């Protein structure tokens, strides 16, 4: 067939030409540039604007960064060094302030010889939350999770070693009563009795017990006053503590809001909406100015604890909404299946609903944590030394560092960015994984 054609039509080729490279404009970098940067007048304009923006920013800030000085003892010294090195009128960053004061940005006024304690606490945090957040962490470590809060408080604040042990013992006591009695009396009665005994223990037994044990066998860590907390240590303590303490309250509130009981639902809704409706700063003012009005006359405890209480309420309201979302996202069938198995409300929640709802809520909880962590900077307005304003203001009160603004901003901003960016990436990947699991 081709033969005849080959003879009759002179211009038909019978051999393949070797492949030609694409025209210069259609391949490689040029093609990429054309498709991604200059694919129309609008895109070209945007690209040029973008390049101009980057150029301006770099030209403005790069020299300043490059002229940075690390070895100086005051801002004046920094300026002299920069003038000496780069001539009159040159500007440069004075990173020396970070070198000299980095420990205050991180630890506040925590005694330097005890820095290992917050560092250890921070590392252990990963061991404690690892089993919850990462699938590759061995499940065995999960036993450590409930122990961690007691250990962390003890490590950070120090004091008698008996305190965390005996307080933990109280919970073990309550849990033991619950487990022993629930087969006989039913879970509600058992829970009430367990809680009652535990409360009695905390109110009347634990104090003298710790005192007695400490007298017999003293052991513990040097105690550190709350006033020494500052910088990122304070921010992380408030953020992590607030979220951990708010989880139980948040779960209760979320269940309360979903409840069929109008009173329970009403109280939950009022609490959640009230807390979410006011700025955190007003709640912090409540902590610093009003909380004493609401407690019996003469009671008084330190501002970090008061702030922690209000931050917990704040976080609980947001966590409750996240968990409510998780509960709502569970297919109806899960609830119906639990009912069909004859499980009562608490068993159904504990064994079927909450494990699933909490799992899909983790990304939301992480986002809430990021928000909270950022918001902990507001504690500066009630006189605590947060890393963003409290510590820099304090450093600027020193003659040597008066008038240093951008370096602390950049340093603290960078740390916030790194921590939050990592967490948000984690939460996004988790979200994707959960979506995959569900389909």
């Amino acid at each position, binding site marked *: 067939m081709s033969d005849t054609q080959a003879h009759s039509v002179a211009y038909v080729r019978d051999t393949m030409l070797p492949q030609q490279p694409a025209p210069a404009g259609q391949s490689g970098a040029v093609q990429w540039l054309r*498709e*991604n*940067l200059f*694919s129309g007048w609008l*895109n070209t304009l*945007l*690209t040029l604007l*973008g*390049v101009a*923006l*980057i150029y301006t920013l770099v030209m403005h800030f790069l020299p300043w960064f490059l002229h940075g000085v690390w070895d100086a003892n005051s801002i004046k010294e920094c300026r002299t060094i920069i003038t000496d090195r780069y001539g009159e009128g040159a500007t440069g960053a004075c990173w020396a302030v970070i070198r000299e004061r980095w420990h205050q940005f991180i630890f506040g006024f925590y005694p330097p010889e005890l820095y290992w304690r917050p560092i250890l606490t921070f590392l252990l945090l990963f061991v404690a939350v690892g089993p919850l957040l990462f699938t590759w962490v061995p499940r065995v470590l999960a036993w450590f999770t409930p122990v961690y809060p007691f250990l962390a408080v003890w490590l950070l604040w120090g004091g008698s070693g008996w305190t965390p042990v005996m307080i933990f013992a109280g919970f073990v006591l309550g849990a033991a009563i619950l487990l022993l009695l629930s087969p006989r*009396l*039913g879970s*509600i*009665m058992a829970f009430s009795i367990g809680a009652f005994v535990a409360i009695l223990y905390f109110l009347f037994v634990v104090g003298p017990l710790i005192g007695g044990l400490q007298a017999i066998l003293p052991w513990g860590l040097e105690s550190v006053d709350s006033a020494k907390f500052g910088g990122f240590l304070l921010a992380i303590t408030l953020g992590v503590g607030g979220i951990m303490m708010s989880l139980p309250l948040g779960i209760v509130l979320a269940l309360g809001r979903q409840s*069929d*009981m*109008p*009173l*329970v639902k009403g*109280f939950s809704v009022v609490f959640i*909406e*009230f807390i*979410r*409706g*006011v*700025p*955190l*700063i*007003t709640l912090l*003012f*409540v902590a610093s*100015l*009003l909380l*004493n*009005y*609401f*407690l*019996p*006359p003469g009671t008084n405890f330190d501002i970090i604890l008061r702030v922690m209480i209000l931050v917990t309420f704040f976080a609980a309201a947001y966590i409750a909404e996240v968990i409510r979302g998780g509960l709502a996202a569970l297919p109806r069938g899960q609830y119906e299946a639990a009912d069909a198995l004859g499980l009562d409300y608490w068993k159904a929640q504990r064994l079927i609903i909450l494990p699933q709802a909490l799992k899909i809520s983790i990304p939301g909880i992480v986002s809430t944590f*990021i928000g909270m962590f*950022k*918001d902990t*900077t*507001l504690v500066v*307005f009630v006189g605590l030394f947060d890393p*963003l*304003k409290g510590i820099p203001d304090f450093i600027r009160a020193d003659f040597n560092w008066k008038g240093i*603004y*951008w370096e602390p*901003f950049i340093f*603290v*901003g960078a740390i*916030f*960015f790194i921590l*939050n*960016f990592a967490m*948000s990436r984690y939460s996004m990947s988790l979200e994707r994984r959960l979506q995959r699991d569900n389909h």
Partner: protein
Amino acid sequence: MTSAPDAPEQGFRLSQLIYDTRYRSLTIQAIVFILVMGGAAWLVDNVIQNLNDLGKDFNFSFLGQRAGYDIGNAIIPYNNDMSHGRALLVGLINTLWVSFLGCVAATIIGIFVGVLRLSKNWLVARLMTVYVEVFRNIPVLLWILVAIALLTDVAPSPNAYKVNQQTGEAQASMLLDSVAFTNRYTAIPSVHFDRSLGSLDTALAPISLNFLALVIVLIASIWVNKRMLTHAAKVQEATGVRPTMWWKSALVLIAPVVILAIALGINPEEPQIKGFNFTGGTNVSNSFVALWLGLSLYTAAFIAEIVRAGILAISKGQTEAAFALGLRANRTMSLVILPQALRVIIPPLISQYLNLTKNSSLAIAVGYLELRGTLGGITLNQTGRELEAITLMMLIYLAISLSISGVMNVYNNRVKLKER
């Protein structure tokens, strides 16, 4: 405990309160009620006792007393002879004003960034991603502090605008001869009328009748324009031909207002440097601008993500279907994509508005006197009434939040998918 549960003829037993599902919820509610009320009573009792101990009382009469302090950026007329209540009002209006402008700016920037993040332009998409990530992950307080530090560091002082007697020149010159950026405020021209119709004295602020007249005329024009458009639509339905409308609309909308404004002798009053500061015109304080910028840029990063997610949520099939129906790209956007995307976008958008409004209380960091600065700041401090002031402040914020979420609920109900 030993008796069988299925023996209703025995009548009511106490254990039924716990084990019988019919009564259990009542029991639990009663217990919760008692606990909550008991807790509340305990708190109130403590407050009363503490107030007694301190020799204080709980009343709001301080709101009627003379404030005695000045507010640098009051929108409604205020001076230090007015009451604390008036100062509260000034603060509240400042809160609402900065929140409103912040929401507007954040929405505009957010939509812009969100759309550009989806752009095919590699560079622009990356830049926008960097913007979103950087602003989202750093506390808003830092952005506000950066904004104020930039404004005070970079802009010249008003003195720089003064004409030097020797050289006959000023160090800095005004933008278009009417806007001056300084390290304490931005001076912009204000509107001035040569012929005034007088002003209406309301309790809040005197409202210029000129302004009122312009607004009324504008509203009337809009109404007329709407009627004309409805008419045009009717004609189109009846005949298939839509009468040319754009120039009629433009005429109706613009002409009356312009004519009235000229009749009233409108002219801009330009700021002039006099003594230490600019007078004439309006001075927008840097604390306001810094707060506004910080809040808008921060919130815009979140809004950008919401917009992006909203657009991505609409499946590609919708666009293709619209194209298949012969709709052009812009009509596809306005008739098919946007209405659906908005349903996804609006609820989280409103909650961002809510956050921005609450974050406006960070004005404390730059000394812009809004609600927290007046009522929760100076008034609280000068009168020592922290219980009253903070309670009132929280209730006001709560009312603002609830009204915003109320609006959201109304909207949600209107756009809810009508499922069968």
